[in-house]
């Protein structure tokens, strides 16, 4: 079942770019990454899903219901954490969380205490006095306290130290195990790589590709580095699918996409002293998509 289904969603603001013709869906129980640089349209898409802004054309459904028409109903089961959290300053953390909980028709007090403990958050402080990272924690607890079925995160990690980030990811994975679907928007690829099953890459308001992280990696280049006793003839690895060949003294390096056996046979024929075959990280794949389109 698809928890989120976006169909030809378009949002334009006057002349400024919004998003155009975005379609993808998020399945139940997935951690879905939504990546792209700042200004590519991630927030616009998410804000449309939450009906904070309304689409120019196209539509989206969450839990099978139209996001505009059934907004309040859908939101009962959504937890949202915006990239910048600002809350009513004159309140204590506890009061704000209770205010947030009062919108959901269930007792969240136990969950608030649990989450605060995990995130190491002092409930009795005034929000005014909190650091950016601690405000973020308030945001996280606020987004998760009603145990939502869908968690939408818009660049959630800024301001969190690595330790807290780790705890936060564990928390998300735990929620996911319990059945929550997660839409995770980010421009930091390592965190997407660490957490997500599938990703949508967005560029200048358009979806470039939607792929499984594993497929994304399979379908791309592998990095080869071959060390030999003597300098190799640069033409030795002149195969289809070889790119960026570089020969530097005894070290030959190139990128390869295609049947890996062909390269392996070539390598087997020569005397080598060392060999590295590396998966490109997501960053490189991502750059690849961006360069290709540019």
């Amino acid at each position, binding site marked *: 079942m698809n928890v989120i289904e976006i169909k030809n969603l378009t949002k334009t603001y006057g002349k400024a770019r919004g998003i155009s013709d975005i379609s993808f869906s998020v399945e139940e129980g997935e951690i879905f990454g939504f990546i792209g640089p700042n200004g590519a349209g991630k927030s616009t898409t998410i804000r449309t899903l939450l009906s*904070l*802004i*309304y689409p120019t054309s196209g539509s989206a459904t969450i839990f099978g219901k139209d996001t505009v028409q059934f907004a*309040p109903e859908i*939101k*009962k089961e*959504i937890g949202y954490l915006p990239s910048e959290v600002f*809350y009513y300053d004159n309140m204590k953390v506890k009061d704000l969380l209770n205010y947030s909980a009062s919108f*959901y028709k269930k007792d969240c007090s136990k969950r608030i205490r649990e989450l605060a403990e995990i995130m190491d958050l002092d409930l009795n402080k005034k929000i005014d006095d909190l650091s950016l990272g601690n405000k973020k924690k308030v945001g996280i607890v606020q987004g998760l306290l009603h145990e939502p079925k869908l968690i939408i995160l818009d660049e959630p990690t800024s301001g969190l130290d690595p330790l807290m980030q780790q705890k936060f990811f564990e928390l998300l994975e735990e929620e996911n195990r319990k059945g929550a679907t997660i839409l995770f928007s980010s421009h930091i690829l390592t965190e997407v790589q660490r957490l997500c099953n599938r990703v949508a890459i967005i560029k200048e308001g358009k979806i470039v590709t939607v792929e499984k992280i594993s497929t994304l990696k399979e379908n791309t280049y592998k990095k080869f580095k071959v060390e030999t006793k003597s300098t190799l003839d640069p033409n030795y690895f002149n195969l289809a699918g070889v790119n960026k060949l570089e020969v530097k003294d005894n070290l030959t390096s190139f990128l390869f996409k295609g049947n890996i056996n062909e390269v392996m046979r070539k390598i087997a024929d020569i005397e080598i002293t060392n060999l590295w075959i590396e998966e490109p990280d997501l960053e490189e794949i991502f750059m690849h998509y961006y360069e290709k389109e540019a």
Partner: protein
Amino acid sequence: MNILLHELKAYRKSTIIWTISLIMVVALFMSFYPSFTKDTEEFRKLLEGYPAALREAFGINLDNFFSILGFYCYGLSFVTLCGAIQAMNLGTSIVSKEVREKTADFLLTKPVTRTTVLTNKLLAALISIILTNIVYLAAATLLAYQVATEDFNVSIFILLSLTVLFVQLIFLALGIIISVIVQKIKSVLTVSLATVFAFYFLGMFSSTSGEEAKRYLSPFKYFDTAYIIEKSSYEASFLIIGGIVMILAVGASYFIYAKKDIHSV
């Protein structure tokens, strides 16, 4: 209900401060009354020396200026001015506060409709204003009894005082529509002071020209105190206009707010 309570809590401090301010303004005026009545004739001569237009502009009516009710009316115009600023502040901040403090994301991703949000915020503002008026009315009546040298008609006194509430309601409605239309209001006070004073001066000029029709331009002139004292009632046409302004402004606000894009800032 939770939004209403939260909003009321947020308004508590400002409501108390405004209520005290209104009472202080009226107390200051009323404290002059005993010395005024002592030298009635001298004052009358002095005021007669001023051009009639100026007297009109400041709402000084020589026929009843020296009765407690007439004197109260003079002070009341300043109370109304302050009250209008309070109401305008409340109205303007209803939506803009959420945008400025970036809490709109928090509130509007909760399972509530925008109509519910606006209704609760509106109710909270309304309750603040009504509470202000109840306390003000009690204090003003008490003060009037303290300084009055002769009997006066309490029901007229109450009718006069209630004009503060009506003017406030109109400005509350104006404030809401502004806060819904304008994308981002940096300073609520600037907007509300500018609007309120614009209407105040518009009212002053319209009364110097003496044309009846121009009174419709400024809510400050919807309630003619001399008329109220004479007839012990309000002028129906202005009540209706005031009501229409409010309904239109509030109705349009609901409509616009429901359709509006809430941008991240």
